[in-house]
């Protein structure tokens, strides 16, 4: 059989036709695409395909081997589950973006050279941002812009590294790179940004919770796991990754405890779980790399399940803040059960998928005598149960009764969650099929008496700590607030540093801006001449009364102000501003 194209192209090309279909045809077509792509992948024997010579460099657009196959397989599972979860969504933009994004990630996984990798790497960034913008809010728009800038920066690092490598080594093959010189260091940073290394991580917590209900499920699966794959391919056994990974497992959990947005809590826990995988890559033994791949496999499924359950809550209630939720098990019993299965899996409870994958990494770290790392990983294992295993289901579905009564999630969402939950349990009970897919042969039995008992001890005592802290009132309450993270350095610090007059100047500038807005209001607009003459000098002190009638909004339940037909609009009465007469910024 001769194959000349990547399986990802089936999804990318197929996505272009999605808007042409309507109703059940569109649903059937979208489900068919990942099935077709997967069938094509399974029929493809291991080897290199789609080779082409460009400027004397041999490009290998498709490479199927043990490592790429298992990532390709789980990416197909993820796209199928995500499409099923999003079937009710009428917005074609999200469907097209999701399929192109998934196809790009699959294309990148099967890339045999750095140039093909770069092209798909950038395509994941450009396509996935539409899953954030599709929420169509100001916050999402801004978060999407920041996300896109950071993702493209990662691509620039990758491109710079590739150019240097081509100049120095004359080679574009994507195999083991090692951290040897500037070129590979740049590529390492590119992978690190997408993998959300510490201090490069905040794009994840910033953007994922701002995406649409269905978009976050797509996002949780591909970008970061593509980076894990790239690190496993290019930098296995790099000592620095052990420390980076250990830090990644530990620090996000402190944020997760005090975070109110439950999808952001999941984003922090995603970072924590990536840390386990990065440690496995850093340790670099066969067992550790098997652990990384197995954990990426199980993680994609249970993390998607958790994001699906929180997405269902957001879809039905309109909020995802822990401070406003509670008692939803009465309204959404199936979603509750599925969320608990996801929570048990991420916590590595025996009989759930995390148990059979995370322990490979822990054992490999212990085997190689990474004692401090082992202590940190154990701390992170207890912590992840605390905030992801308990906090997420507890504050959403139990805790105090918020009084919210809503419908259960739509049928397609329940089906997707049910399928993911089934996989979590099936892999936990019967891990052999997954172990057979791993890049190296597995000589490991997860269900030993010691492993089961020690893991149960760790988890149940962690649950006890949560219960004691809640009953004694020490546990921090869920508050409507946000916590500063590393994004402060690019979202706030430049404003402080570059503001012409410092804080005082900023506040006065803001006051001037408010006055200008008040000038645009209809009442003020009825006195245009007077306002114009005061623009550059002292503005009116009291805000002008606004006219309008209130109408109820059927969507948010909040009242919104509708324009009074009798009142003149701001644009119609706005006086022309002479060129070159911008008001001076007061200092």
């Amino acid at each position, binding site marked *: 059989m001769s194959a000349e194209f990547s399986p990802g192209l089936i999804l990318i090309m197929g996505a272009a036709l999605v808007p042409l279909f309507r109703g059940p045809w569109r649903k059937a077509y979208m489900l068919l695409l990942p099935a077709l792509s997967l069938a094509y992948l399974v029929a493809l024997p291991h080897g290199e395909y789609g080779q082409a010579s460009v400027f004397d460099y041999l490009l290998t657009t498709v490479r199927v081997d043990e490592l790429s196959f298992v990532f390709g397989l789980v990416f197909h599972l993820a796209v199928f589950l995500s499409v099923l979860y999003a079937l009710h969504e009428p917005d074609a933009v999200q469907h097209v973006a999701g399929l192109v994004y998934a196809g790009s990630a699959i294309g990148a996984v099967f890339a045999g050279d750095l140039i093909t990798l770069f092209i798909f790497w950038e395509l994941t960034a450009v396509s996935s941002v539409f899953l954030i913008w599709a929420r169509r809010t100001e916050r999402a728009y801004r978060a999407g812009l920041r996300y896109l800038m950071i993702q493209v920066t990662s691509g620039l690092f990758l491109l710079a590294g590739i150019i240097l490598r081509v100049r120095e080594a004359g080679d574009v093959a994507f195999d083991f790179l090692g951290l040897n010189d500037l070129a590979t260091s740049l590529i390492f940073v590119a992978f690190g940004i997408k993998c959300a290394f510490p201090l490069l991580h905040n794009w994840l917590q910033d953007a994922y919770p701002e995406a649409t209900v269905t978009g976050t499920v797509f996002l949780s699966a591909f970008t970061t796991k593509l980076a894990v794959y790239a690190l496993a391919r290019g930098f296995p056994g790099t000592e620095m990754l052990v420390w980076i990974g250990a830090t990644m497992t530990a620090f996000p959990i402190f944020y997760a*405890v*005090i975070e109110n947005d439950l999808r952001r809590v999941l984003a922090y826990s995603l970072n924590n779980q990536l840390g386990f995988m990065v440690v496995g890559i850093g340790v670099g033994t066969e067992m550790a790399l098997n652990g990384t791949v197995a954990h990426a496999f199980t993680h994609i499924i249970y993390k998607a399940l958790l994001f699906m359950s929180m997405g269902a809550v957001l879809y039905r209630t309109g909020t995802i803040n822990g401070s406003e939720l509670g008692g939803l098990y009465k309204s959404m019993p199936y979603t509750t059960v599925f969320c608990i299965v996801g929570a048990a899996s991420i916590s590595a409870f025996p009989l759930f998928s995390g148990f059979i994958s995370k322990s490979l990494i822990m054992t490999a770290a212990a085997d190689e005598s990474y004692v401090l790392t*082992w202590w940190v990983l*154990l701390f992170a294992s*207890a912590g992840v149960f605390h905030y992801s295993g308990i906090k997420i289901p507890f504050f959403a579905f139990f805790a105090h009764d918020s009084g919210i009564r809503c419908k259960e999630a739509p049928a397609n969402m329940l089906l997707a969650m049910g399928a993911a939950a089934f996989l979590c349990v099936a892999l936990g009970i019967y891990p052999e099929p997954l172990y057979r897919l791993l890049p190296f042969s597995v000589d490991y039995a997860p269900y030993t008496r010691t492993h089961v008992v020690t893991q149960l*001890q*760790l988890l149940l005592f962690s649950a*006890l700590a949560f219960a004691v802290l809640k009953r004694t009132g020490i546990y*921090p309450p869920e508050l409507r607030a946000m*916590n500063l993270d590393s994004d402060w350095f690019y979202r706030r610090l430049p404003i402080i540093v570059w503001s012409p007059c410092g804080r005082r100047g900023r506040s006065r500038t803001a006051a001037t801006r408010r006055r200008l807005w008040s000038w645009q209001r209809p009442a003020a607009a009825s006195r245009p001449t007077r306002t114009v003459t005061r623009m550059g000098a002292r503005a009116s002190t009291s805000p002008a009364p606004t006219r309008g009638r209130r109408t109820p909004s059927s969507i948010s339940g909040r009242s919104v102000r509708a324009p009074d037909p009798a009142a003149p609009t701001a644009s119609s009465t706005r006086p022309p501003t002479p060129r070159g007469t911008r008001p001076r910024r007061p200092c």
Partner: protein
Amino acid sequence: MENEKKYWLDEPRNVDRIFWSLVGLCVLLAAFDLVYPQHGHFFWENWVGFYGVYGFLSCIGLVLLAKLLRMVLKRDENYYER
């Protein structure tokens, strides 16, 4: 809501039951180490109840440190929109 079905967890006494069942399970698991000593990679893994004590103290420490962190990092939810 007044005529709404009463759920098992609505009864505070049942929540207490869950808590004390959890305490009982933890005691049983710690006692299990006395009957069947563990064989871990490191010598401290063989101490009775090591994983339980470590898990419990880790979570207490995690929450207390996170509370301190909140005092420093907490801002208004529209901090960046202002």
